[in-house]
Every structure is written in structure tokens, then in C-alpha cells.
């Protein structure tokens, strides 16, 4: 009897199942656990209440990011509640011997940026974090997904979580993308086609030339956004691009261990003939620069198009109307030319060096539009350093922009980086939910190129006209 061809996802999942409970979840062993200040304190309290300890402290890594200021990080944090959460992370990690890169640490930054850039994230791993954008790490051929605080407590106390194995979906994008099309446009396009719930219950493998040719930064952007169509996570088979990115990073294997690891990682691909529960294929030539017009990431469109009418968009007409009303937009209006008050580049979606290179390529030789407030927030200190070393900071400064310090910032506006009520922001982050960037804020999600074009013109602009 011949063996059934396996998917990449099956290989990684099945090799981590400690136990499969009949008519129940699998007990999944977790290789890497990231924690941050917002979703971990109650998990540590839970451990104390039950008298439990941390089973493998060396497999958990802490960074402060969600609730941190992006200016004057050397000063004490002003908001007492935020300061208290940061202090709790520091004392909890010290108590249990967990690595902690807090504010001021040169390796501090957004959890999904620092994991990969320090070689903590590796192919074939299972990775979890109390943050839905943990899906980012799937770019390396890892199974990575977000969990709740009860599950954080499970991982701390037993290095395992209990999960129903998701169904499998493959999304193939063939061909090559055109001028001015970034990985963010590819993912916003896919989500607009599948809707914000189109992949719920599934784990998605991305395949095809577009992803094969993509950089690791780009793959991270795509996998990051998987959750925005409801997927448990996204995964891309590791290849030479992956290995070249990891090699030499601080926590990556070295010497013989490296060779052994690469030999194993090369086996991590979906076999010919393996089946998926659902498959989609898209053509890269159909993708133009994308922008969202509504209040979930599925409400996206090509930047030169008009806002769809409710019937075209699907779903309930009442929810669609509520969404457009919140945004102050009408069906059939163009997005081009709409006024922009704020521009945010950063986040675990688009806060890596390639994103700032793209942003700088458009603002170079131009000036920030009067009336636009721009927040330029690197994903980590290492990215910040690259921005300086590559001369990007000089370009930004000459164009009238300022660089802030790393953190999640205006992506979820837990700190002071809040877009005021009624104002419009073009944002490279991941969610355009009502009030996501501050109560009453109106978010248009887009790529770093679209963000840059808006920042220098003050209106929604097709970046291809400025390239």
C-alpha cells in the first residue's frame, strides 16, 4: 500500500501531537512561546492560584510592545496602568527565568518582528503567542497561531495546548505581480475575494510563483494577514530564501546543527498529490494596489475602482450600510482623491525594513503634505538601526517626516498614538475595525507605497503615478 501524500501542514502538526483524543482535540507540543505585557499577566496569576510553575522557561520569550510609548522610551511610562503591565511582565519573567526584552533593550520590538529577526522562529516549529497575528511566523514553514490567555497559561504550565486540528486550504497565486504591487496588496486582494470569514476553520498554505519569488518580509506580511480572513494561520514552505534569511541570526542553529536542520527543513513541503479541503487559485495580473473602504479587512478594493454596492459585497445589507456609514462613504464612490488626515506605517504587518524602503522610495525628493500627521514606527530597534544605516532616515527627514521608536503603536492604539474621532487614516496595519486606531477613527488599510503616496499628496493616490 502506498503512503498517502502529506501536506506541509500535516507534517508539522502530526509531528507535534503528543496525544490525539478521540472525539476531542489534539494535545499539541509547542516549540516556541512568545509573550507580551497585555495577554500574559492573568496567565501568570492563574499559575500562582493553582500553585503551578513554568515547565520549560527556555522555550518562552517575552517582549514589551503592545502598550509602549513610541517617543521618549527612556523616560518612565506615564500611564500608570501601562506602566503596571510592563512591570508585571518584568517581574513575572524574572520570577520564572524567562528571557525578557523589555523597553530599552536593544532587541526590543514587536513580538512578530523580533522573533524572526533574532532567529527564534525556525521552520518546522509550532509557535504560539497570545496575539492573533502570530500567524506571521508561518512564513518560515512553521505552524504559528494566536491563542487566548487561558491557553498562555496552558503553555507556560505544560508546554502544550489542546487544539482541534483545523481543515486545510491552499491558496495559489500564479504569474507575477505588476509595478507597484506589494505583498500587502496580494493579501488584501485575497481577503477581499474570500471575505473576513472566508477561511475560518482552516489553516492556509500559500503556494505559487508569487510567494516563491517573495522575500521573507513579504511572506511575513501575507501570513500575518491570514487571520483577517478568519484562518487559524498561514504557512509557506521553507526554501533557499528562508534558509538565507535565517543563517547567522543570533539564535539560529550553527555548524553541524545548522546542516542537520537544513536537511530536515528541506523535507517540509507539500507532496505531489496531497489533498486540501478547499483550494483557490488567483492570477497575480488581476491584482492592483489595494485599499479598504469599510470596517473589516475583507472590505477591500483595487485603488482605481469604485466602492461596491451592498449586493455585490455579499453579507447582510444592514451590516454593510452600518459599515459605510461609520466610514462616511457612499456606494459607487471612487476612493481616489479622498482626504487623508493621518498616515501610519509600522506594525507586525508592515514594520520591517523592506516596508520602510518602499515608503522612502516614494517620499524621496517630495514633501509631506501639509495637514497630514504621519507616524513612522519601526517594528524593532534592529529595524530602526537599519533605517538609519541605509540612509532612509535622511530621506524621511528631508521630506519632513519624523521617525518614532518601536512598538505596536497606532495599529491598536493602546498607547497615545490614537487617531482622533472622525479622522481618516491610511494605515499599513492589519485591521480597519470601528475604533481600532482610536475611538471614532476611520481606517483605510493599504500598502507602504499607498501610505507614502497619501502622505505626500494628502489624498488617496495611486502610487504607480509616483513611481
Amino acid at each position, binding site marked *: 500500500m502506498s503512503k498517502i501524500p502529506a501536506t506541509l501542514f500535516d507534517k508539522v502538526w502530526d509531528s507535534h501531537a*503528543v496525544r490525539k483524543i478521540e472525539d476531542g482535540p489534539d494535545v499539541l507540543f509547542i516549540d516556541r512561546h512568545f509573550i507580551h505585557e497585555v495577554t500574559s499577566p492573568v496567565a501568570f496569576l492563574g499559575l500562582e492560584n493553582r500553585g503551578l510553575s513554568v515547565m520549560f522557561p527556555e522555550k518562552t520569550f517575552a517582549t514589551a510592545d503592545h502598550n509602549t510609548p513610541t517617543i521618549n522610551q527612556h523616560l518612565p511610562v506615564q500611564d500608570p496602568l501601562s506602566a503596571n503591565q510592563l512591570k508585571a511582565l518584568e517581574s513575572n519573567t524574572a520570577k520564572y527565568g524567562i528571557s525578557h526584552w523589555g523597553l530599552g533593550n536593544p532587541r526590543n520590538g514587536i513580538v512578530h518582528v523580533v522573533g524572526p529577526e533574532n532567529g527564534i522562529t525556525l521552520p518546522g516549529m509550532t509557535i504560539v503567542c497570545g496575539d492573533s497575528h502570530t500567524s506571521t511566523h508561518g512564513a518560515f514553514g512553521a505552524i504559528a497561531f494566536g491563542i*487566548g490567555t487561558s491557553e498562555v497559561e496552558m503553555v507556560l504550565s505544560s508546554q502544550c495546548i489542546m487544539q482541534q486540528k483545523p481543515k486545510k486550504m491552499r491558496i495559489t497565486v500564479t504569474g507575477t505581480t505588476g509595478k507597484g504591487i506589494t505583498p500587502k496588496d496580494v493579501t488584501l486582494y485575497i481577503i477581499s475575494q474570500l471575505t473576513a470569514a472566508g477561511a475560518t476553520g482552516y489553516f492556509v498554505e500559500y503556494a505559487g510563483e508569487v510567494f516563491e519569488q517573495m522575500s521573507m518580509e513579504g511572506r511575513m506580511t501575507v501570513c500575518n494577514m491570514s487571520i483577517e480572513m478568519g484562518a487559524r494561520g498561514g504557512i509557506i514552505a521553507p526554501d533557499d530564501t528562508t534558509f538565507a534569511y535565517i543563517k547567522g541570526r543570533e539564535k539560529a542553529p550553527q555548524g553541524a546543527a545548522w546542516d542537520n536542520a537544513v536537511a530536515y527543513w528541506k523535507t517540509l513541503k507539500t507532496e505531489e498529490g496531497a489533498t486540501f479541503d478547499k483550494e483557490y487559485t488567483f492570477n497575480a495580473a488581476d491584482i492592483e494596489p489595494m485599499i479598504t473602504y469599510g470596517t473589516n479587512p475583507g472590505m477591500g478594493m483595487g485603488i482605481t475602482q469604485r466602492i461596491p454596492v451592498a449586493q455585490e459585497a455579499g453579507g447582510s445589507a444592514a451590516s454593510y450600510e452600518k459599515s459605510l456609514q461609520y466610514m462616511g462613504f457612499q456606494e459607487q464612490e471612487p476612493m481616489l482623491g479622498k482626504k487623508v488626515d493621518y498616515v501610519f506605517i509600522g506594525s507586525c504587518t508592515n514594520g520591517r525594513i523592506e516596508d520602510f524602503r518602499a515608503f522612502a522610495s516614494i517620499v524621496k525628493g517630495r514633501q509631506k503634505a501639509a495637514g497630514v500627521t504621519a507616524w513612522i514606527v519601526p517594528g524593532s530597534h534592529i529595524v530602526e538601526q537599519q533605517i538609519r544605516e541605509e540612509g532612509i532616515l535622511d530621506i524621511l527627514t528631508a521630506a519632513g517626516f519624523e521617525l518614532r521608536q518601536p512598538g505596536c503603536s497606532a495599529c491598536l492604539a493602546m498607547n497615545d498614538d490614537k487617531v482622533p474621532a472622525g479622522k481618516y487614516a491610511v494605515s499599513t496595519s492589519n485591521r480597519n475595525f470601528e475604533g481600532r486606531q482610536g475611538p471614532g477613527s476611520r481606517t483605510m488599510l493599504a500598502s507602504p507605497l499607498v501610505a507614502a503616496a497619501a502622505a505626500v499628496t494628502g489624498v488617496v493616490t495611486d502610487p504607480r503615478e509616483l513611481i
Partner: protein
Amino acid sequence: MAYDKFTVLKSTAVPMPIENVDTDQIIPARFLKATERKGFGDNLFRDWRYNADGSPKNDFVLNNPIYSGKILVGGKNFGSGSSREHAAWAIYDYGFRCVVSSFFADIFKNNSLNIGILPVQVSPEFLHKIFTAIESNPTAELVVDLPAQTITISATGESETFDINSYKKHNMTNGYDDIDYLQAMKEDIKTFATKSMY
């Protein structure tokens, strides 16, 4: 934390026929700054429930005194977005023990089960019937029977079954959680860990 046992819940329900209710609406990020699990119910649906000056928005269902109960009935794709368990905590702390929808986001569903809220997924047709029943009579009761895996509209007797795996069902009816289970298999986990290359 282990939680209250869940067997049969008979209650009136609060209707919220909105699709894609994301966890940022259930509890906005600025209310995630606590280091303890308490008081989240006060800020449940904060920005739909209150104006910027703190006065209640009269057109929001939680501010409408004719609706109350331990069951929240939401539209399709309930609980999407952020993984914040605070969303489930807020729903629990407010007093709900069961959320009904035609479709749940995965992480929200897991979080709910982990703290003792039962997510009940029904067909779009049955969801419509529930909304109609509650809106025509706010005192209409629903009966959620976990052992039988049924949800029934008391007034009409219309009923539908719902899915839950037998492991989770056993946990909820007994008030056990996953941590209890994992602690009991630590030796197996230790052995497994010795084989890990990471």
C-alpha cells in the same frame, strides 16, 4: 481557571443581529490594561454602548431595558479579529453564559469554551427564527441543553441540535478545564520533549 458547571440553561436572550462583531467592539484595546481578570463587563461593547462623554447610547440593545438574560444572540462571524480573551471575560463578567450565532471565529470560540461560556452554532435559518422570536416577544425564553446538545425556542417548541466534541462537553458539564487535563499527562509531555530538535 476551572469554571461553573454548565448543563441546562433556560433564559431570555439579548438580540444583536449584526454580522462580523469583532473583539475590538466587544472590548476595545484601551481597556486591556488590567493585570487581573475583573471588571471587564463594565466596558463590554463600550463604544457601541456609551457616548464619548460616558452617557449611554439609547439605541444600543444592552441599554434597552426590555432585553435581558444570560444568552447573547449575535450575527454571523461573531468574535472575529484579535485573540484577546478579555472579550470572552467581558461577556462572562456582564452575566452571559452562552453566545448563539450562525458562525463563530475560531479563537473566540476556543476562548469561550476555556472560561465556561458555551458557544452555540446554529443554522442561519434557525438564527433568523430566534431573532424573530425575541424581537416579537422580549420575554421569549431559549433552552440550551448541553447534555442533549439542543437549543429550543420555548414558545414555539422549535429546536435544533448543535455540535460540541465529547471532550469539551464532558469538561463543561463537570467544570473541568484543559489545564486540569494537561497537568495529569505531564510525564508523557516530558518524554515527548526529549525528542524535540528545538
